[in-house]
């Protein structure tokens, strides 16, 4: 063999090897990038363990893909959504997702004891057997918590029932700002003797709005529930994302989209939807609705709601404005979380064209803006746009009130130091008169989202506390009626003697139904009302509400008393009391507090029943209390 040709053949061999290696590297890279976790039969993605079979199955399907798929392209929106309470509405249980104190050594409510235990990364509760059939001795059982609901006010818990994928409510929950356990029953404004359904509640109701694309799959009391994602994920508002993801793998399409003014037709952006369709995206959950036919209900039991963002919600659902105690008698919704029901009755929504109508997005923003100077915590509380806590929210359309002079002329109250956009502590703040706190949320009043104008008639005929008397707690309905007539020409209804002589808040606190009592108690702790009305006189009313049959009213009374300087203890410590204390303890607390308060000196103030020398007019007080409206009220979100 000649040696002359050897270097050439070696070079060719080298070149061929190099080219082969390059082609192999590029091929393998492409296969990994585009592959499904399988390359030439070799699986390079580790198999996940099979999901548990005793709880709702999380499985993206029907075009849904889950929020994590959105992250790589929409990092900023993903981040703000991650910070929101929407994401954490439903969570699997892990140390990172557990807000409640499991180190507590047992707790007892109404004779039912609960013990807590953490086992590794799992959390367990021991309680009376929820499946006890009433025969023999009731056993104690340990239940593993598998899911939780909420992260804003409460964290409530669910355990696997052991029957298919049905999960049941743990009867106690964790109140986050109070850092305490309490019965789930106490977190709602519901009658003391009412039963709150605990079995399968998530599968048959909650999951519809607390997860994405839920299918209840209910059959004979069992549930084989499947959801695309736990919590209120991106696709709850933007619709199924699979087609969008697939289409936008094409970089040419993406850059065409970037250069175009048109929206991407593979995904829904609620703020781009026309008119009412836009707010209906929120309304799918934030409204009281019913399916329109038995056929639809039967279908819902199997495969859930058919509505997707961008659809016309009215095609499949009827909006409700009466029934239960979720509404004031005139149809205004008073249950929080149902703000779209209120918006539907608002003139700013009803009387405008679809293009100009007020929508949820007039004031709210689901993703915090890049230039938003507020902290994430501040934004996520109500997910309001910047400036929308003040008058800017209304003045953006009602420009006639943009100047301080015009606003003052309208409100007859001073504006704050920042002018018309400020509104001051109250009085000149549009919200306080036109969106007062007459809805009830989880242990607190929230603003009604039905924009209306205050009247005394609404209080007399419907029983709804009017905005004037929710700030001027020490004034009568007659007083409000006089100013409403003089300033705005609002008609005055016929008033009873008590309505003419006794402060409206006192009537609601002593003689009102549970909703009126709760709202009155809440406003006695509301800073603008305290500033306008004083606080000292409130003590005996809040003290009496400490002994209210409704836990929610007692809880609210305690919170307002904590903010009342006249309720501080003898050593100057702020008032505190366990609203879940026994009836006897509550009675003692009421008496003790009033006795201590009575020792103080105060001036006569007729409307709040302070007679000569500032003494409480017990005869009227007790008469009004005996007339308490015992109509059951049920406000459970």
């Amino acid at each position, binding site marked *: 063999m000649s040696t002359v040709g050897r270097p050439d053949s070696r070079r060719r061999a080298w070149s061929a090897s190099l080219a082969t290696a390059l082609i192999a590297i590029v091929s393998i890279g492409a296969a990994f990038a585009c592959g499904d976790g399988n390359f030439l039969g070799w699986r390079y993605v580790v198999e996940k363990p099979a999901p548990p079979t005793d709880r709702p199955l999380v499985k993206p399907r029907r075009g849904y893909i889950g929020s994590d798929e959105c992250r790589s392209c929409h990092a900023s929106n993903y981040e703000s959504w991650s910070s929101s309470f929407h994401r954490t509405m439903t969570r699997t249980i892990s140390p990172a997702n557990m807000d409640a104190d499991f180190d507590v050594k047992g707790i007892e409510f109404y004779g039912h004891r609960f013990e807590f235990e953490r086992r590794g990364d799992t959390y367990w509760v021991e309680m009376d057997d929820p499946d006890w059939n009433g025969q023999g001795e009731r056993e104690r059982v340990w239940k593993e918590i598998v899911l939780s609901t909420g992260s804003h006010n409460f964290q409530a818990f669910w355990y696997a029932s052991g029957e298919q994928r049905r999960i049941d409510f743990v009867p106690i929950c964790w109140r986050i700002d109070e850092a305490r356990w309490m019965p789930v029953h106490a977190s709602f404004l519901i009658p003391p003797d009412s039963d709150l359904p605990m079995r399968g509640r998530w599968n048959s109701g909650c999951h519809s709005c607390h997860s994405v694309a839920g299918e209840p799959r209910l059959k004979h009391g069992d549930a084989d529930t499947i959801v695309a994602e736990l919590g209120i994920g991106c696709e709850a508002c933007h619709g199924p994302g699979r087609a969008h993801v697939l289409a936008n793998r094409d970089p040419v399409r993406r*850059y065409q989209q970037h250069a175009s003014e048109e929206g991407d037709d593979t995904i829904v952006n609620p703020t781009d939807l026309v008119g009412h369709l836009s707010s209906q995206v929120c309304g799918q959950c934030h409204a009281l609705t019913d399916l329109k036919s038995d056929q639809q209900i039967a279908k819902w039991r199997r495969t859930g709601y058919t509505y997707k963002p961008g659809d016309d919600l009215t095609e499949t659902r009827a909006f409700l404005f009466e029934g239960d105690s979720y509404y004031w008698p005139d149809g205004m919704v008073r249950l929080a979380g149902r703000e779209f029901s209120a918006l539907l009755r608002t003139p700013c929504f009803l009387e405008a064209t679809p293009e100009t109508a007020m929508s949820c997005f007039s004031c709210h923003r689901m993703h915090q803006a890049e230039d938003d100077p507020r902290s994430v915590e501040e934004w996520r509380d109500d997910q309001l746009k910047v400036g929308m806590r003040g008058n800017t929210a209304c003045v953006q359309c009602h420009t006639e009130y943009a100047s301080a002079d015009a606003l003052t002329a309208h409100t007859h109250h001073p504006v704050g130091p920042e002018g018309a956009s400020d509104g001051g502590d109250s009085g000149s703040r549009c919200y306080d008169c036109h969106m007062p706190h007459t809805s009830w949320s989880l242990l607190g009043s929230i603003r009604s989202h039905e924009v209306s104008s205050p009247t005394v008639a609404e209080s007399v005929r419907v029983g709804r506390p009017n905005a004037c008397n929710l700030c001027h707690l020490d004034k009568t309905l007659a007083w409000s009626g006089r100013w409403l007539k003089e300033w705005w020409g609002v008609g005055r209804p016929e008033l009873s003697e008590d309505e003419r002589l006794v402060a409206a808040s006192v009537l609601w606190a002593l003689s009102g139904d549970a909703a009126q009592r709760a709202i009155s108690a809440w406003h006695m702790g509301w800073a603008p009302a305290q500033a306008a009305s004083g606080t000292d006189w409130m003590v005996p009313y809040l003290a009496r509400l400490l002994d209210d049959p409704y836990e929610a009213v007692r809880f609210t009374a305690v919170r307002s008393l904590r903010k009342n300087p006249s309720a501080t203890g003898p050593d100057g410590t702020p008032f505190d009391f366990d609203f879940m204390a026994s009836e006897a303890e509550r009675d003692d607390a009421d008496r003790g507090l009033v006795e201590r308060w009575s020792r103080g000196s105060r001036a006569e103030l007729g409307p709040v029943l302070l007679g000569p020398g500032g003494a409480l007019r017990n005869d009227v007080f007790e008469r009004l209390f005996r007339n308490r409206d015992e109509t059951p009220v049920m406000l459970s979100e």
Partner: protein
Amino acid sequence: MNSLDATPTYVRRHLRWGWWLLLVYLALGIALEVMHGFKVGYYLSVANETRRLMWRLAHTHGTLFGLLHIAFAVTLKLAPSDGDPAWRRWASKLLTAGALLLPLGFVLGGVIVYESDPWIGVLLVPVGALLLLVAVGLVALNATRT
């Protein structure tokens, strides 16, 4: 060494390119560090993740290509060629163009970002990458030959 040998010219040229690229892209690295230090949202916020990625890539690639120029100069010095062979002319031009375009593409790509997509200037990156690949291929083949 042949009197017509252009090697010293190439060596000087690529040393010059290498050190200037190092200066520019190390300076960019320092600028990025400063933006980290002062937590500049334009660079660090989640919405600007793509900008951050682009400029980090510009910094690393620009610096690396500066070193590549120096390595090329050293290679020419250690293995000089007679005359001015075509492969060297082409390798020099392509290396220079590629090392300029690729990191510049990353810089421009980060100036404007559309959520996860960089500005269209990022198209310089694949062009530069291709030129560099050919340049490195030419050098590799000739290093094998000699």
